């Protein structure tokens, strides 16, 4: 199956390597025998309506200031597409902007900044990554196919099980095979023969990454 992924303003919103999430999504989909096309939506462009997943990364204050007027238009369109079943993922300051735009249910409040490794449970999986935030936004939340996290940088790379669970839900929704909230459809995320070594290589390394970050999170 083929997924179309739109990254909003990726040139602006990669402050901590956040676009790595979509690089990982594309790779994992390929390793599992699917196709993925990742395209940038830049200033003045619109999101193609057949997009399956929209991604909003993390940027500097200067980047957000530059995007402001374009962001309003694109996030309004994003809300419509989400209502029609398109998946959406946002990280760090992109996630905070999405909350401000009402894509998530909370209101944001400023709190003292935290800069550390962090572990959290979400949908039965333990997720971890680097947290550098000064708002009370939940560290991670997933409502149907709308996913937001304060864990910036390559969240999917370090949490491949979570990435696979999320991507399989997008795939199964597209196939109309399963309703939301069901267990992951494993058959949709089975490594393709010949590419399984990539999945295994990453799994071994992720174990070491997670051991390290758990130690650092407890310091």
């Amino acid at each position, binding site marked *: 199956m083929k997924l179309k992924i739109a990254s909003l303003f990726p040139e602006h919103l990669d*402050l901590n390597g956040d676009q790595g999430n979509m690089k990982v999504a594309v790779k994992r989909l390929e390793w599992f025998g699917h196709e993925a096309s990742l395209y940038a939506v830049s200033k003045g462009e619109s999101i193609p309506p057949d997009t399956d997943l929209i991604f909003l990364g993390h940027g500097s204050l*200067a*980047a957000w200031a530059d995007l402001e007027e374009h962001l309003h238009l694109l996030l309004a369109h994003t809300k419509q597409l989400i209502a029609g079943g398109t998946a959406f993922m946002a990280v760090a300051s992109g996630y905070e902007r999405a909350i401000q735009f009402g894509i998530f249910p909370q209101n944001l409040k400023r709190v003292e900044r935290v800069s550390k490794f962090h572990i959290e449970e979400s949908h039965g999986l333990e997720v971890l990554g680097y947290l*550098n935030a000064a708002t009370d936004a939940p560290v991670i939340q997933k409502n149907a196919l709308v996913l937001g996290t304060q864990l910036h940088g390559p969240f999917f790379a370090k949490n491949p099980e979570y990435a696979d669970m999320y991507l399989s839900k997008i795939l199964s929704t597209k196939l109309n095979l399963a309703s939301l909230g069901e267990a992951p459809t494993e058959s949709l995320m089975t490594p393709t023969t010949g590419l399984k070594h990539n999945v295994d290589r*990453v799994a071994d*390394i992720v174990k070491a990454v997670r051991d*390290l970050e758990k130690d650092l999170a407890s310091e």
Partner: protein
Amino acid sequence: MFYVPAILIGRMVRIAVRLVRPGGGSALPGLVLSKIAPGLLVKTMASFPDGLVVVTGSAGKSTTTKMLVAIARAHGKNVFTNPSTANIAQGFYSSIIERSNIFGKIQGDVAILEMDEGHAAEITKKISPRQVTLLNVLEDQLDRFVDPAVVREKLLMVAAKAKSALVLNADDQNILLIDKEMDSKPVSWFGVKSSLISNTEHGLGNAPTYLAELSRPLVQTEVIEQSPKKTTVRVLDEDVSFALPNRGIHFALDAAAAIESARRYLGENFIPELAARTLEELPPVFARGEITTVNGVDVEFILVQNPMSFQLNLDNLPPDQEQVMVAIGRDVHDPSWLWTVDMKNMPAIDIVTGFNYAEMALRLAYDEIPVGEVVPELEDALAKFFGLPAPKSGRRTVIFSADAMRRTRRALGFVDPEAVER
């Protein structure tokens, strides 16, 4: 007399640390001295007849300071400077323990110091420098600074304290913004000819401001030609040439920064030809273009401290790499930035190691870059890497972060990094 007991205590702590950890450095002696004699730093720095010259910014501080110090010395100045590993407040106190007499006085005409961009604003609140050189603002150390705008604000505070000269990078819009914020400062500029920058794939790597471009000021010292064998810099109306050991344009920019800084400090006594000759003869800063021999085989050590230096070094890496080791140490607090580097020039890696070996290996795995072996312990990795059969090309390459560099130096029996002289 007031500081004599404090300096003696600092020296005793230093002796104790060296007994416990031979060959290793420590921030402890400087930390102790800064607690028991906080006023000593101001007193010592104020004692230099020519005052204090500060070099700061996100990247290039060590190289620029080393070059500037060498040029000033070649012009007959007696210079006090700090090791590159001691560029925060405690480090300066450590340098005082190392270099001062028991009254806290250091011999010399001038102090030329590399300062961490986060600490420089705090330190210069107490000591007004004679001259400040601002190199650049990068998207770097975001776990500390959160946003490049924070670094810009800190550098603005340092620049505002410069008493008689401010030397600025004309090719970083962040630095032009800083200049715009200040009134009537004695500014002069260094830079790189625009065609040289546009020839590079990733430019100079400065943090984008996303604002309407401020026009480039008239530049007093500019790199006008650069090749692996020859760098030519125009200083006012005079062209001087020299060879630099590093391939990257950023190294040439550091040279321009050092020359302009020296020109401002030395005034009428500055001789461009002498500056060029000094740079030509300068031994490379460890791991910035240095090639040395280990187990009878040449090794190029490449230090990557931030996204820009990783990117620029990768962009300039010759394609015929045969044996490569990558070591990412504990100094990389949040390894997320490894994902901002375009790895398409990264060759196949023989060994990945260092405290953050798994984070680096994960990045390489998603780019499907072949890795021979992942070796968690750096010392084991060094033994394996330098025990490999000699490469046909005659050269190995080690790419490492600052912490991995220090541990590598120790393991290979190179000079204690705390004792590096400039």
